[in-house]
């Protein structure tokens, strides 16, 4: 059928769609705007062999179809990686993601059915209220029953199943009074229809289901953004590795089959799947994922290499010392798993409200029943009144109170460049009293910047720029950016050669030029050099002396301002870093932080958070490295810059774009305002009940009153949530100015 070709593949799993065509999914977390969509689709579309490429921005996934045999999913992911996007192919069915999508579709279908039923039954009810009588009224009631009953059975399932599982474990949640109200309203209305009475609540029951499902869909949308951090960490590990046999032949094996003692080959740009030791080759190793330090380490035969390290410049062979569950990466995954379990015990504000509310409603209904039975002795009257109480107190507004505010808050933060992954995280953020910052990449920009250069001629600068542009080494790129920013023009450089771990060599203006380490440029090792000095690059033009460029990781522009703003809001601010004392001391002084710790391991960081929680504090952790991930997962609330290691970004509740740290204060302000609005909403809903319950108890809750009161309270709560939109647009200050690909992506200069 023609329409089948237009629809997207419903299963992202690899499946042969037509003869010779294969399909697959790649997760690309860095996609965040129209530019990225266009770029990714253009790159893939221009690749021979790829027949279809479509980006899903919501899921951050690309579904691709290609002619089998010419390519495979890993090769397509590599194309995206070389374009500067972190990319992870999804091997096999993507179960968790499919389940979330199925749940969303089920809820939206239920919402649509409830909406259809509510609209149509309400039209019929208006006819009844405006004076339909006798046979006509009965007919309208019967038609209503015909629409409403199946709709309630279908649309009520999410509530019924949740209430059933709560009751099975002897708990009360918000879904218990909801289910009770829906079932009793439907059953009583059917009974009233059969006996030809006036009081039929089909419209109220349908509307109830519709409003509550709206809240449920909003809530699900929020939760869909949050993914399991642990799952992503496992996914970070490469799925395959190239094993070098003793004879020198290479073969590809699944990463889980690697064992200590094997030798594997790691090409530039690849991530190490295991802990190991370099046996052959030299390269620069990017360990930013593991230590949070942006400066690459030199790797030579004998150097240790940790799982998760990215090989930057040269091909190397590694002897495996630890694989799988024994690697440092797996240890961090275990720490995070433990942290997530601890955090799952946090009780959402709506659930806390339900614990008080549900028993109250049931007691009120029971009292109404007992009271009317005692007063009038009429079973039927007592029962209908009690059911009317249940219907009118059904927590319609309560069900909307939290999701409506959170969706508006998230929309507002999103416009300011802050992505909220988790509604509960937003609630917890409002409660924090201590902020812990990581240093590299969080308080600082995380990338080295050219700080000072020795005296040198314009020609030398031009040669340095020309040479630096040829490398993907972070310092070379920082040098190129720094020199270009100072107005230098690149000189043409030929015969460029890169010696991994040492530097670059080329010919400029007829003379040999070297750019790289101190030793590479023939300078003696300077033992007097202090820790204080940052990384450096040397330049030597044949015949001349070596000249030095130094680099420094600079503070984010508004770091000091943000620290002061947080202190002004009454929060304690700490700096916890894995770096050396001198650097941490300097950065803390520049940012105005008096409480700082240095040399902290990931375990230490997590311990500090635990200790603070033990002392009754609530911690907001702001960090970007893999070494921060356990602390991020453990903290009461957590934020990460979008440049963070994928895993830190996944562990964090909120992720902010752009170079400004002001996003932290902005998010905190929105979270606190959202909390205030949620409380107001609860007050509104409670006030409505104070008014409505007496009316219902006295027996005046006619279907018309129930319908009007219910929609009025829901609209009031939603309107109150929308107030968050107005207000001062302080979050706008954090508008993204630059977008960096996630750490781990290797971008071309």
């Amino acid at each position: 059928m023609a329409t089948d070709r237009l629809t997207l593949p419903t299963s992202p799993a690899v499946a042969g769609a037509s003869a010779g065509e294969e399909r697959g999914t790649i997760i690309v977390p860095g996609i965040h705007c129209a530019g990225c969509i266009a770029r990714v689709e253009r790159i893939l579309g221009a690749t021979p062999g790829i027949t279809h490429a479509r980006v899903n921005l919501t899921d951050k996934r690309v579904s691709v179809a290609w002619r089998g045999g010419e390519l495979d999913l890993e090769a397509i992911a590599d194309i995206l990686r070389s374009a500067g996007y972190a990319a992870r192919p999804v091997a096999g069915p993507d179960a968790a993601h499919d389940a979330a999508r199925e749940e969303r579709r089920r809820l939206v279908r239920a919402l649509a059915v409830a909406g259809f039923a509510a609209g149509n039954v309400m039209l019929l009810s208006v006819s009844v209220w405006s004076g339909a009588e006798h046979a006509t009224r009965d007919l309208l009631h019967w038609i209503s029953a015909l629409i409403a009953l199946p709709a309630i059975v279908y649309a009520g399932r999410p509530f019924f199943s949740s209430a059933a599982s709560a009751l099975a474990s002897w708990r009360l949640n918000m879904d218990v009074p909801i289910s009770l109200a829906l079932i009793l309203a439907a059953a009583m209305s059917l009974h009233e229809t059969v006996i030809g009475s006036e009081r039929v609540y089909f419209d109220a029951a349908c509307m109830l289901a519709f409003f509550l499902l709206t809240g449920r869909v909003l809530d699900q949308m929020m939760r869909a953004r949050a993914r399991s951090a642990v799952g992503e960490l496992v996914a970070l590990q490469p799925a395959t590795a190239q094993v070098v046999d003793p004879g020198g032949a290479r073969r590809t094996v699944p990463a889980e089959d690697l064992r200590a003692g094997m030798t594997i080959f790691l090409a530039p740009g690849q991530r190490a799947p295991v802990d190991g030791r370099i046996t052959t080759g030299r390269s620069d190793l990017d360990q930013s994922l593991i230590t949070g330090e942006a400066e690459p380490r030199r790797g030579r035969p004998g150097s240790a290499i940790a799982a998760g390290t990215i090989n930057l410049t040269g091909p190397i062979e590694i002897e495996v010392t630890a694989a799988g569950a024994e690697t440092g990466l797996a240890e961090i995954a275990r720490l995070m798993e433990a942290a997530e379990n601890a955090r799952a015990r946090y009780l959402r504000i709506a659930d806390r409200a339900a614990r008080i509310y549900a028993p109250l409603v049931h007691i009120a209904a029971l009292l109404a029943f007992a009271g009317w039975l005692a007063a009038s002795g009429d079973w039927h009257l007592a029962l209908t009144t009690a059911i009317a109480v249940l219907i009118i107190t059904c927590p319609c507004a309560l069900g909307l109170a939290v999701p409506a505010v959170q969706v508006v808050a998230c929309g507002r933060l999103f416009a300011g460049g802050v992505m909220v992954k988790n509604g509960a995280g937003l609630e917890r953020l409002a409660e924090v009293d201590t902020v812990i910052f990581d240093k590299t990449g969080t308080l600082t920009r995380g990338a080295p910047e050219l700080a000072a250069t020795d005296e040198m001629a314009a020609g030398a600068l031009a040669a340095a720029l020309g040479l630096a542009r040829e490398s993907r080494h972070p310092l070379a790129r920082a040098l190129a950016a720094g020199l270009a920013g100072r107005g230098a023009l690149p000189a043409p450089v030929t015969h460029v050669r890169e010696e991994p771990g040492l530097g670059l060599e080329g010919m400029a203006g007829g003379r040999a030029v070297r750019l790289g380490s101190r030793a590479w440029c023939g300078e003696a090792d300077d033992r007097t050099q202090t820790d204080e000095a940052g990384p450096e690059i040397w330049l030597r033009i044949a015949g001349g002396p070596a000249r030095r460029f130094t680099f420094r990781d600079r503070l984010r522009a508004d770091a000091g301002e943000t620290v002061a703003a947080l202190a002004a809001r009454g929060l304690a601010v700490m700096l916890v870093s894995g770096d050396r004392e001198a650097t941490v001391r300097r950065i803390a002084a520049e940012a105005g932080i008096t409480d700082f710790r240095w040399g902290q391991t990931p375990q230490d960081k997590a311990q500090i958070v635990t200790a603070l929680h033990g002392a009754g504090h609530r911690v907001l952790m702001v960090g970007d490295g893999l070494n921060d991930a356990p602390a991020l997962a453990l903290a009461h609330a957590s934020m990460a810059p979008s440049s963070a290691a994928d895993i830190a970004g996944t562990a964090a509740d909120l992720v902010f774009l752009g170079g400004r740290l002001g996003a932290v204060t902005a998010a905190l302000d929105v979270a606190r305002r959202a909390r205030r609005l949620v409380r107001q909403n609860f007050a509104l809903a409670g006030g409505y009940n104070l008014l409505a319950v007496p009316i219902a108890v006295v027996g005046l809750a006619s279907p018309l009153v129930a319908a009007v009161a219910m929609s009025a309270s829901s609209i009031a709560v939603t309107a109150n949530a929308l107030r968050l939109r107005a207000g001062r647009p302080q979050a706008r200050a954090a508008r993204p100015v630059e977008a960096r690909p996630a750490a781990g992506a290797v971008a071309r200069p």
Partner: protein
Amino acid sequence: MNVLLLLLIPAALGLGALGLAAFFWALRSGQFDDVDGAAERILIEDDDDAPVPAPRRDGETG
């Protein structure tokens, strides 16, 4: 009156059901799978039907 009831109520319900069916179809065919993407795609200049232009470097590194 009865004619109106017998004609208009089924007509109203039928139209509503038609809308519901259309929505279900849209949901099933994946039109709501990427609402954020749909909002952003309108900003992309390239016309999907236009011949594929030569790969253009827009200067950004990612």
